[in-house]
């Protein structure tokens, strides 16, 4: 049983902001695929739940060349997978959506819920990190948070009380850039990552790597970018990038894998991905 609460379903952003700021012990939710499990286990027991799914703006994906991609917080991963523009231009995010949980769960699980739940294993997070996403925040004072500043700890975000995520915005990557997400799990479907590696490449000088499940937050490895900006043979750069990834992460041991295994696989996936995207055999 899910513990008792009062349910609210606002239809506008303003109404949702007001409810969140006036109701006692209130929380927003979208798909409920994280929240209801936590509530069932009595790990959280909010008195009021605010359902964001009746706010139509939060369900929309839009794209134009100049402003980039904007994904409403309550857009599901199933919808992201159906978007041709995400598949063509934001492939690393599409990849992440395609391996998040399982196809049935993806009909409910949302991108806003994924980043706000702020698990170190959140599959969309490394993709958003390498794509320089910006989080649009609704609240009494609307603001924006660069994704690099959004995750502050295990299950912690930079959101303040009374705020919620309205949308995620992603600038259009330059033509010719490529990205992929490599998820290593115990099974092919429906498991959190042992390690996830997102890579976005725009030529040999602009290479970005971010990972899930290897640190207290999803993490982008700045040292890799430095390595690729400098000159030198690509073979050498890949080697140094793998080292940089391994030395900048600090995974834990849990049921999914040991610390050592995670460090090892983080390097393996990074190398595999860099070779694929840079077309180095």
């Amino acid at each position, binding site marked *: *049983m*899910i*513990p*008792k*609460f*009062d*349910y*609210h*379903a606002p239809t506008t952003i303003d109404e949702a902001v007001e409810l969140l700021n006036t109701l006692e012990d209130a929380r927003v939710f979208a*798909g*409920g*695929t994280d929240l*209801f*499990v936590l509530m*069932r*286990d009595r790990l959280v027991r909010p008195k009021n*739940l605010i*359902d964001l*799914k009746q706010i139509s703006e939060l369900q929309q994906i839009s794209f134009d060349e100049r402003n980039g991609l904007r994904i409403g917080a309550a857009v599901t991963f*199933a919808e992201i997978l159906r978007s041709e523009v995400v598949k063509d231009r934001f492939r690393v995010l599409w990849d992440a959506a395609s391996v998040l*949980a*399982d*196809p*049935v*769960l993806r*009909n*409910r699980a949302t991108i806003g819920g994924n980043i706000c739940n702020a698990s170190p294993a959140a599959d969309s997070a490394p993709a958003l990190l390498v794509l320089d996403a910006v989080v649009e925040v609704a609240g009494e004072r609307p603001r924006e948070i660069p994704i690099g500043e959004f995750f502050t700890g295990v299950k912690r975000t930079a959101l303040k009380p009374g705020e919620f995520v309205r949308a995620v915005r992603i600038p259009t990557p330059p033509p010719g850039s490529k990205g992929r997400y490599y998820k290593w799990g115990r099974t*092919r*479907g*429906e498991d959190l990552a042992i390690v996830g590696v997102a890579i976005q490449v725009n030529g040999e000088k602009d290479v970005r790597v971010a990972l899930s499940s290897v640190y207290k937050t999803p993490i982008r490895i700045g040292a890799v970018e430095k390595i690729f900006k400098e000159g030198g043979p690509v073979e050498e750069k890949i080697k140094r990038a793998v080292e940089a990834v391994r030395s900048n992460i600090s995974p834990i041991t849990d049921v999914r894998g040991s610390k050592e295994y995670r460090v090892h696989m983080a390097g393996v996936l990074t190398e595999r991905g860099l070779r694929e995207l840079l077309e180095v055999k």
Partner: protein
Amino acid sequence: MSKHRISLKVNGRLHELEVEANKTLLRLLREDLGLTGTKCACERGDCGLCTVWLDGKPVKSCLVLAVEADGHEITTIEGLARDGKLTPVQQKFVEHGAVQCGFCTPGMIMVAEAFLRENPNPTEEEVKEALGGVLCRCTGYRQIIDAVLDAAKEMRKAST
């Protein structure tokens, strides 16, 4: 706790009900509407046995509130057969012996039916991927996958 008047269609029939906020769609179907074909197991999104369709899309009903289903259309395993005639997927499950204890069968079939409507000509890999969110403790996956592939063939034949 808040109570809500909801109206929803289940297998084509309109229901008007009052539900408490914390009631899940799964419990509403099983306990209030007596539709026990939908199974209740983990109640945490892992097993997929509670899968029903919400407006034609499969969802795990243990993670959907009844109040969230207000105004929507639900289809359960009871709603698939027409006039006692099984769907091709159901029929093939029988023929392939894809049912052992049967506990996962409603979930498997609800996912497979929806999947084949979107992808009538799947590869074996795609079938495995589609069924990834439903667990069979009896582990009879081989027969289940064969049944779905065979049903796909049957459905393609029927539509040409």
